[in-house]
């Protein structure tokens, strides 16, 4: 505390008595308005502690919480779209796709559901991934690409635990010693020739007979596949497990088949219909 009150000559106010580099600070009180705003802020913050959850384990007398508010908003949103979902649930999938109103709603809803549930395997844009995750944007469908087929695939999955699942099993020709390694190599060469990519005519010719005996039953004599059995087309340019000879031989050796869960246990009927519309619209729907 300064021992002597010193008056500033210009303003008539007392100084604080301290001096910094020849400058003395005036002992000016805070502006009244500032002080009142400051007190109001203190009162406000105390009120905040009382009414709102601001301390751990103290939830405020209003019982308000961000989480509850979110739940409320979500609930309100669900209520808002419920009639639309109800209509989609009650409408056959083909009719949903024909109605512009339902179709637009289903497309938007399907896109959101796709991002949540399908994108991890099939890619955010439906481009698929190597190693057995089919692209949904191209025009080859192992189990059929019309609305009904897509809906069924989503409902019950592929090789899932659901009784109605789509299932077929390609034999493990090598691992189960049905064919020898040489036979498998010849067959692979023949498979390459189906899409015009064989470089060894003799091997392909040898493989042709093996193919007719072992593969044609499912894949067809010309290798065009069969959506009833889920056997892929081998004569086109789309290869789920790789298109070079080694990859094809590996598929014959081990037998291949991807797995997709049955979504009817996780998603409701309307969501699956919306997903169907969305997937069908990606570019390959038949």
């Amino acid at each position: 505390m300064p021992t002597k009150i010193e008056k500033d000559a210009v303003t008539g106010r007392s100084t604080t008595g301290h001096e910094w580099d020849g400058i003395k600070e005036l002992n000016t009180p805070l502006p009244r308005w500032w002080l009142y705003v400051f007190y109001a802020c203190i009162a406000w913050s105390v009120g905040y502690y009382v009414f709102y959850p601001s301390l751990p384990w103290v939830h405020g007398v209003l019982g308000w919480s961000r989480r509850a508010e979110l739940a409320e908003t979500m609930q309100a949103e669900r209520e808002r779209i419920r009639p639309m979902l109800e209509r989609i649930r009650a409408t056959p999938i083909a009719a949903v796709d024909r109605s512009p109103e339902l179709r637009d709603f289903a497309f938007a809803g399907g896109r959101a559901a796709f991002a949540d549930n399908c994108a991890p395997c099939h890619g955010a844009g439906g481009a698929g991934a190597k190693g057995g995750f089919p692209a949904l944007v191209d025009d080859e469908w192992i189990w059929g690409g019309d609305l009904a087929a897509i809906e069924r695939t989503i409902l019950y999955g592929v090789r899932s635990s659901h009784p109605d699942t789509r299932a077929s099993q390609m034999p493990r020709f090598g691992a189960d010693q049905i064919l020898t390694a040489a036979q498998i190599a010849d067959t692979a060469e023949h498979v390459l020739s189906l899409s015009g990519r064989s470089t060894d005519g003799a091997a392909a010719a040898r493989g042709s007979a093996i193919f007719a005996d072992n593969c044609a039953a499912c894949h067809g004599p010309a290798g065009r596949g069969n959506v009833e059995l889920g056997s892929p087309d081998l004569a086109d340019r789309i290869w789920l497990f790789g298109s070079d000879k080694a990859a094809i031989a590996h598929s014959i050796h081990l037998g291949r088949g991807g797995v997709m869960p049955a979504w009817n246990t996780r998603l409701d009927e309307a969501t699956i219909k919306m997903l169907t519309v969305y997937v069908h619209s990606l570019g390959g729907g038949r």
Partner: protein
Amino acid sequence: MSIPSAAAASRARPAAAPAAGPPNPPPPGSGAPPPPLYADRVKVYPKAVQGRWRQVKWALLTVCLAIYYVVPWLRWDRGPLAPDQAVLIDLDAGRAYFLWIEIWPEEVYYVTGLLILAALALFLATSLLGRVWCGYACPQTVWTDLFMLVERLIEGDRNARMRRDKQPWSADKVARKLAKHAVWLLIAAVTGGAWILYFVDAPSSFGPILHGEGSVATYSFIALFTTTTYLLAGWAREQVCTYMCPWPRIQGALLDENSIVVTYRNWRGEPRGKHKLGTEWDGRGDCVDCMQCVVVCPTGIDIRDGQQLECIGCGLCIDACNGVMAKVGRPPNLIGWDTLANQEARASGRKARYRLWRPRTVLYVILIAITAMVMVAALSSRASVELTVQRDRNPLFVTLADGSIRNGYTVKVSNKSWEPQTFRLSVDGLTGALLSLADAPDSLTDLSARPDAVATRRVFVTVPADSSVAESSSIVFRARRQAGGDSASHDSIFLAPRK
């Protein structure tokens, strides 16, 4: 240049109100403490004045207010689908209408052009006639003048107002102050309310807004504009011009010695002094130091100190001085519109000469002409169709079963006409490329768009297998109006797997 700096003008300011101003600084070395650097506002009580420039000011005030209040009510027939308000900024629909011009959000550069044009016109007006904008047409001036008129009608002229403000509160004083603020608030509310009408259909919205059926946003904005009008025109007044507005600082650079500005004829007025009727005028100037030019000034300055930042060039001091000159029998325009160069010429007995065409005014005229021509050209060639194309990013391309490569795009065709249109889409720049609509692959690539709307469709471009397409090729989308006429194009690329 003989225009004093802003700082010099500010220092000269206390002289404008000698009765209430802070004391003059004592001479240096006198030992007394220096006065504080902060000067309180000296309240300005402008006195009523009659005369030619006051008439001009009233006339322009009426014109400006009329334009402001009438424009939202003007109609313009644009057909059954479009709003028929001549000037309308429809924020919900994202359209702005100005007579025959319609602006979409992506065409806001027309507004930029308009602002550039307005700025250049202001430059030209200022370099020719000084601060006529500030003195006669600026909204701050117009509404302040209107508020002062109300104040004068309710509280009386300068002397009555000053006297009343010094008196203790009485019933009469309270009543007059209340009445004044009530009328001010009413004018402010009408001002704020009229502003809203530029953004909604005026005839159909006016009633509901008046009856309390408008939206919360509408009333918030009316409240905001009411408050700002009331505070700026009622309370802040000349402080807006002096302290808040950046324009006076810029205008200092636009004026030169050939600009026609409000000037005090120093050579004629000085030496000034009181004058007794009937005495001789020899050996003295015409200025009788009656201070009338100061008391009528809305910014409270003394024009006799020369050009200064606070002067808004309204010319009311000219009217006041001319009244006095007539009374004492001297020629008018001791304060008048003239150029600084002419003042010097007259002072030294040379002939006064006006130079309106100077490099800077010629430059402004040329720039205005160029800007106007560019805008007219842009407006007259405004396309009624616009095309944008967005490539799919995920996946970048798709290999189809037959080995062909397909890219997906989202095209948006803006139909800026008021009739429904059909557009034929095509793609150029890639041999063998086929264009198809994603949801109707076998139909023609026709796309119909509703009037004044954007049609959005997904399309595919497919290149057959083995057609040696490069990893990335430039392609051009085109949308041609079926009815003939306009077409629009948009560049994009086609991506294919690495060979």
